[in-house]
């Protein structure tokens, strides 16, 4: 008997695959079930957002930002609007700031609901996903009330909002918040504490703080590794310094700090924190105020450049804008959090099994629209 000639097999996961969260292709080098190398291949959803932006007036870029991270369109619009406003030095009415924060945080909850549900789906639990979408629908209803759209809003404009919220919005938001905490307990019951789920997620794909920082991982995935960086807290933008909220960190409750379970659980906790922020913002929301009063007639930022970052549900969303004083940006670069978060997959996913790679990918919560732009 000679030696059994076994060799590694290259497995293409995607672009058509149920668990790649869009059209991502992972080139896996596998030895049986063990994955020895992961190479993400991206670009299937490339729509030239940055090149488009160089040919569009500033206010026309807003809808495109929402199309990048389509699960968190409000967050993207918010970041972009703030970047341009900072360049132009626009002072916003209080009501606008509060409503923006409310929408950004509602969007964070909606986005995390998808992340949490889809992670459950990746490890094989189908029902929690549907539960998460049930709550997400309620948030989308609120967005529809305000902007008329459920996914891509074009609602947060430079210098203000497209419309004021309709009557009854505040009450409905309170109603949603009242119901929401109970629902989070439901997710914890069906998924978080499930023994099989813990077996599948805890200790899997541990991301040490060093690795996370070296790869530029941001957002909940970074905080799950125990690094306390939340731009809402470290460099408060908008009016985040007025609210009282905690920044949940990964504590390794079920395994090691920075494992997939931590990345999942940090998101669950963040949803509760966002609900807290929304509640405070609703309490303090000024009744008077014209949301369109600060919208400039002409948007021509002065010559110069700016890098403005905000905390999107997926991490640090940065806009680098170069202006030459015209109504069209000379260059617009988007620092996409999911892009950096995905880059770590080979480092933390090596040596795990195929099933684990899917769980790790799910726990990183990527959106391909934003990676490919």
């Amino acid at each position, binding site marked *: 008997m000679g030696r059994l000639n076994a060799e590694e*097999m290259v*497995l293409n996961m995607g672009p058509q*695959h*149920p*668990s790649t969260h869009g059209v991502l292709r992972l080139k896996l080098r596998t030895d049986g*079930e063990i994955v020895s190398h992961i190479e993400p291949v991206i670009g299937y959803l490339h729509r030239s957002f940055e090149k488009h932006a160089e040919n569009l007036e500033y206010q026309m870029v807003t809808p495109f930002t929402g199309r990048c991270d389509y699960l968190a369109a409000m967050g993207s619009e918010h970041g972009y609007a703030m970047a341009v406003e900072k360049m132009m030095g626009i002072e916003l009415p209080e009501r606008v700031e509060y409503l923006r924060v409310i929408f950004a945080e509602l969007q964070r909850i909606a986005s995390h609901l998808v992340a949490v549900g889809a992670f*459950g*789906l*990746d*490890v*094989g*639990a*189908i*029902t929690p996903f*549907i*539960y998460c979408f*049930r709550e997400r629908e309620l948030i989308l209803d609120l967005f529809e009330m305000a902007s008329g759209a459920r996914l891509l809003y074009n609602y947060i404009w430079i210098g203000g909002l497209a419309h004021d919220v309709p009557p009854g919005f505040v009450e409905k938001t309170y109603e949603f918040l009242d119901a929401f905490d*109970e629902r989070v307990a439901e997710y914890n*019951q*069906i*998924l978080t504490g*499930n023994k*099989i*789920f813990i*077996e*599948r997620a805890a200790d899997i794909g541990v991301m040490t703080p060093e690795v996370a920082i070296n790869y530029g991982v941001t957002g909940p995935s970074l905080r799950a590794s125990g690094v306390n960086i939340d731009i809402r807290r470290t460099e408060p933008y908008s009016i985040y310094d007025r609210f009282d909220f905690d920044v949940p960190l990964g504590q390794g409750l079920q395994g090691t700090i920075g494992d997939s379970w931590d990345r999942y659980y940090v998101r669950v906790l963040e949803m509760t924190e966002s609900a807290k922020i929304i509640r405070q913002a609703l309490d303090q929301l000024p009744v008077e105020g014209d949301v369109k009063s600060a919208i400039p007639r002409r948007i021509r930022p002065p010559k110069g450049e700016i890098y403005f970052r905000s905390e999107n549900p997926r991490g640090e969303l940065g806009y680098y804008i170069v202006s030459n004083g015209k109504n069209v940006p000379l260059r617009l670069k988007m620092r996409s959090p999911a892009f950096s978060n995905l880059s770590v997959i080979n480092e933390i996913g090596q040596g795990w*099994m*195929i*099933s*684990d790679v*899917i769980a790790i990918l799910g726990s990183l919560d990527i959106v391909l629209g934003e990676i490919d732009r």
Partner: protein
Amino acid sequence: MITSLANWILTFDILSGMGSSVAWGLSLFVVAALIFVFVAVNAIVLVYIERKVSAFMQVRLGPMRVGKFGTLQTVADALKLLQKEDIIPKMADKVLFIVGPWVILVASVVTFAAIPFSDTLLAANMNIGLYYIVSISSIVVLGIVMAGWASNNKWSLYGAMRSAAQIISYEIPVGITLIAVVAVVGSLNLQTIIEAQGGTGNLFYWIPIPLPNWFIFHNPFLFIAAFVYLIGATAEINRTPFDIPESESELVAGFMTEFSGLRWALFFLSEYANATLVAFLVAIVFLGGWQSPFADYEGTQIGFSIITLVAIMWTLFVRTKTGRLSVYPLGLSFVITIAVWLFPGFAIWLASPGIFWMLMKVGTIIFLLMWFRWTFPRLRVDQLMYVSWKVILPLSLINLMGVAIWMWLTGEIQF
């Protein structure tokens, strides 16, 4: 008692004119057709039920459009599958690709020949019925490996290899748990096993709580064995939380990835046939098969009164969100209790053994399997093997020993 359906069909007058061998062949054919029809209809009904069950668990409605409450949805789906284009991938191994699904289907349908639906209704009364079922149902793995290999697709191959490993590993503990029961009865005949479970007995022989004389209550080791068997069997039929061979979020559709149309429908058919088979085996081996849980009509009356009392108590005292009882089981038990006290005939019918009780038990187990599927996440391959070799197998071996010791202690067997 008629020993088999085929013999019963032979008693018909129409067949008397034919030669005996022709009549015998014809009756066998009728029985085979009946079994196949049962499996097919069963799959269609179960798919509908599974959709509805999953829908209610997920705050949805499920199919509602085709027929009243969507009852014809699965029929429509089956017709659609029959019409679909027959696709065989170019690089596939054609022979194995075609044969694979049929091997799986045949292996899972043929097992029903030995299943007793009631004390008289069964296709073949074999003296090695249990052995026959366990051995035939393991042929399924051959079909799965054939299908996975023939597809010439990496995902299919992964699915097939996982499936082969899984089914072979779980067959051993499952077999050993069944042996524990055989040790008690001393027979592999399913009818004998069911007959041994008639009447009423004490819980675990000594504890004076009158319960049906089912093997699950016979002794503590068989009580554990029932759950070990259910877990092992769930793994053997590739259902969640052990559905790794076809885990849709990992392997696309596992060994079924390249299949479509009729061939895919065959996989589906056999999947539900296997689930039903497992439910039948649990019902037969541990839950008394077609035996009624009540000994006589007084037992029925008292039994249902106790059930209603428990339901009322539950409603009154358990008020947590997840623990509270829905109004339907309470109302149902209430209505049945009243009916049982008012109409002794109904109570007598409930107390008599029959296909009704068999199907009730099977339905309960199938619902349990669906409940698992829509609640649990999926295990990983190595965790699955861990559960099999390091948890369930030792447990089943200890159980087998425990059963023997228990029987020696209670004096059921002497040396």
